[in-house]
């Protein structure tokens, strides 16, 4: 009999949204498997997750977003410092499309590599465009009287995460 950990079922269920399941993982263990059991487990898990999403009973969501070549783990009301000048005015709201992972206490949606854009929505507001602390880049060569000082400050755009929401049931 196949023993399915809740967490396995969770990862299996989360992978459904993008790619169909294979049953090769069972071939490794070499056990006799009830073929229908897997689909029944997935159905139960998906039903439980969809139920939470519809009723809004899930706990606070967090998401891993991909922005300007870096990944951020964010939740609502977070402020993130993006190391760039974003061509967005202060006070404007943007939607972050590249979401690698979204999760709550009871379920985890893992994107391969990205989640569906219509499934999870993350909104952010640009609150500040600022500079980091100043630092000195000192260049020095021995015995040649060569020394230069360059001063540099990194650009930062501060974003406030307005909220994360799951727009529809995860298996549609």
């Amino acid at each position, binding site marked *: 009999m196949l023993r399915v950990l809740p967490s396995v079922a969770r990862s299996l269920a989360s992978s459904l949204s993008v790619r169909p399941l294979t049953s090769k993982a069972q071939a490794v263990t070499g056990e006799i498997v009830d073929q229908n059991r897997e689909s029944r487990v997935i159905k139960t898990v998906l039903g439980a997750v969809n139920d939470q999403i519809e009723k*809004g009973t899930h*706990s*606070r*969501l967090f998401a891993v977003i991909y922005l300007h070549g870096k990944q951020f783990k964010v*939740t*609502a*009301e977070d402020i993130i410092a993006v190391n760039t000048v974003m061509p967005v005015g202060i006070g404007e709201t943007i939607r972050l499309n590249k979401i690698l992972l979204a999760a709550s206490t009871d379920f985890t949606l893992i994107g391969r590599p990205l989640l569906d854009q219509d499934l999870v*929505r993350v*909104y952010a507001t640009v609150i500040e465009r600022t500079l980091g602390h100043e630092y000195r880049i000192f260049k020095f060569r021995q015995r040649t009287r060569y020394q230069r000082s360059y001063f540099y400050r990194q650009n930062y755009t501060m974003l406030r995460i*307005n*909220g*994360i*929401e799951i727009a529809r049931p995860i298996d549609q």
Partner: protein
Amino acid sequence: MRLTPLLRRSLSASVDQKLTFARLWAVFDAKHQNPFNSAELIANVLQGKDKPLYHYHTDCGDHVVVINCKDISLPWYEWKYRMYYHHTDYAGGASWTAAWEMHDKNPTKVLEKAVYRALPGDLTRRLRMSRLHLYADDSIPDEIKENITRQLRQLRKVPRKLDDIPEDERRSFPKLFDFPENHTL
């Protein structure tokens, strides 16, 4: 758009913080273990490298209690050829002690020196060594035993010796053939 509600911070946050950095006590059975491979495992636990909170500036290591140090197993002929060097700083004061000799004098010394070598050689080394508790056999004082909360997995299985196998099990083991009566081994 529905904003997800703010999660209120737990009232016991300060308690959580203290529990997170509390020192745990682990036990390791050194019976039939290679002390030099075991030392790397123990050194990792003493440094806290088995925790997702690990940082090289944070003192987050655990205590390790090692039992059955007298039953360690050295590879190859290392009991004979592994030498421990000491010099008294006087002329002719050099001395080399073989591992078997060191083990006869103090059955925890080989493992202690192995762990000392496996730890990084900075100022935290003595502090971490003070959290290592070595015992020759499996009798631990009660005040230390009550702290232990987890066990480290042995790196290799302890083999069964012929003496440990009961007589009837030994006899019932399937035989391919019997030696002839006039055969001398």
